[in-house]
């Protein structure tokens, strides 16, 4: 014997309410995310033998990622460096990244930059850092396709020039513009194309987006050597100097650092020449 249907309605309603609550509860279940942070990819980091006892980091400010890992590892492997530091970090940034504050507070132990730039930031720069090695002054070339570039208005009349969007860059910004001005060549705004990175600049050149770029040495990236025609610029790129912070430059670490610098294949053909007190370092 069962109760009439209308008596079952509140029961059914209660059942549905319970099921509803269950399904809503299930919908509220969640998996929390772990805190995520991305590292500084424009740097290389390694630990020395004394990493467990020493948390001081040897900070290097470079201008390129080339061989940064090798350089960092060379310093990390050094027992002398391990005596003072638990880790080494090589950071690379555009030339304009360096500020007077970085210099005065000696945020970096080793800086690679140009003389006029660092002294322009802090006139008493030499109180804080001392030059220990200098790369050679190197030639820069105009690179064009199909025909050899000429430093004439006619040649440049219908050409798009690729430059790096970094006003501190000698090879890719200052020198080409200086050269054109000296030669009396005037470009329209749309003939001048600025690119945020070297990769973008070279890609644009390869794809034909620009007709002519500059390049230091004869390092041509992915360019067909037969298709690339060069013309040397009248001026060389000024040398770039390695500066070591004052207290360290007076210590045995000086020679250790210079030895490491000299090993970088970047300078294989022309290793940086030791400057000042570094000259006394044994080879």
């Amino acid at each position, binding site marked *: 014997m069962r109760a009439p249907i209308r008596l079952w309605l509140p029961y059914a309603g209660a059942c549905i309410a319970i099921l509803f609550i269950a399904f809503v509860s299930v919908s509220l279940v969640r998996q929390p*995310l772990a805190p995520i942070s991305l590292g500084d990819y424009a740097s290389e980091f390694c630990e020395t033998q004394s990493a467990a006892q020493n948390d001081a980091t040897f900070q290097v400010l470079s201008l390129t990622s080339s061989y940064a890992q090798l350089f960092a590892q060379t310093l990390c492997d050094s027992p002398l460096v391990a005596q003072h530091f638990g880790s080494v970090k090589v950071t690379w940034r555009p030339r304009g990244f360096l500020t007077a504050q970085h210099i005065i507070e000696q945020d970096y132990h080793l800086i690679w930059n140009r003389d006029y730039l660092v002294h322009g930031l802090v006139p008493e720069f030499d109180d804080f850092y001392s030059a220990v090695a200098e790369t050679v002054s190197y030639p820069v070339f105009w690179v064009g396709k199909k025909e050899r570039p000429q430093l004439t208005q006619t040649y440049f009349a219908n050409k798009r020039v690729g430059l790096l969007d970094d006003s501190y860059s000698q090879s890719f910004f200052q020198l080409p513009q200086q050269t054109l001005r000296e030669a009396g060549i005037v470009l329209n705004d749309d003939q001048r194309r600025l690119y945020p990175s070297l990769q973008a600049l070279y890609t644009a050149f390869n794809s034909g987006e620009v007709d002519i770029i500059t390049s230091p040495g004869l390092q041509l990236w992915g360019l067909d050597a037969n298709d690339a025609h060069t013309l040397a610029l009248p001026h060389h790129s000024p040398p770039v100097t390695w500066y070591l912070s004052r207290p360290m430059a007076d210590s045995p670490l000086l020679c250790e650092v210079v030895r490491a610098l000299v090993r970088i294949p970047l300078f294989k053909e022309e290793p940086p020449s030791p400057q000042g007190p570094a000259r006394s370092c044994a080879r």
Partner: protein
Amino acid sequence: MTLGPWRYWLPAGFGLWLALTALCSWQLGHRFQQQVTETLNTLLRDNTQSIALYHLETHSDSTQLAERINADLANLCAETRVSLLRDCHARVQRIDTIPFSGQKGTRALIDVELPEEYGLQSLSLNVFYDYHWAAVLSVTALLAALCLTAIAGLPRPMPPKQAQWQQTLQLAGLAKPDAKSAAHRLCQLPDTSQSAIRSLLDAELLPLAELHTLCEHPSAQTFSSTQWAWLEQALRRGEDLSRAIHIADCDEGIIFAPQRREVRIHGLPLSLPATPFIYYYWYAQRRVHDEAGWYINPAANRADRDNANALIALLEQFGGHGKAINDLREKGLRAKTLDQNRSKIKEELVRALGEPLAQGYLFDMERDPRTSRNKYRLSTPVERIHFDA
């Protein structure tokens, strides 16, 4: 609280479990993907410079960069005690136009548009995760079990009759759970039985402790209203329940046990006073041995001597009163004596059985046309009269 037939609850529970699991896993994955997409989008956009500068002044292989990003995105899920998702990680699928491998089993693809100023355009990530099925299934099983327990615990709507019974029993003093189950059982009895039991309770003839016994007894299903009446009467006379049931189950009829001066009507033992008992016995014998069983009252002026002697013999045999015996000896069997005894018998039977039940065991009266005197006989048919040795 009854769980009901397993064949309904088990598949229902299983189905509920599956449904909850499906919903749970779907929304876990969906929500996670949403969160991760949002977080990584923001994170990558904020860190674009860091990624773009990786190739500063060089044209190197992006594999290392991808590996470093992958390492930073290797553990996306917080490690809690009950992790429902595990192996949550993201891997770079593409940086601008450079693709990377190792994307099998990906759950979602995140395309991040990067700010143009750094020369990078876009980055794609593959998101991976696995369900920690043990945890998910446990959680949903627990939820399903709770759900079913709650539903099973809901009070079921009751047929009004059952509710009425429950109320009656509770008022009579039975505890609620017992009243509930008793009401449920009572509702399943035929209507005759239900009303009979109700009147037993009303008359306080049935102790609550015995209600269960009575309900469970097979006779409760089959007794007619007459049998219920006998049961009630038996209880009134102080019999216990099992005897009362037995009595109600007995056949209609009288069993005479003159040695014990006991007459059992429908199984119910009665003891009559000596003399009326003998007269009852005598009328019964007449009914059995004589075809019709009628005995015409003797005329006022002519008492019956023969039957008087027979009665005297019976009285003497079974311990009748001396007075009655002497009365018969002196005056013989008179109508008055018979009327008196019959009246006494009726009085006793009605007192013991109540008027309706006593009916079949009293006396028929007719007027004899020939003598114009009344004649009487025992109403009970021959086959219902028995004599114990």
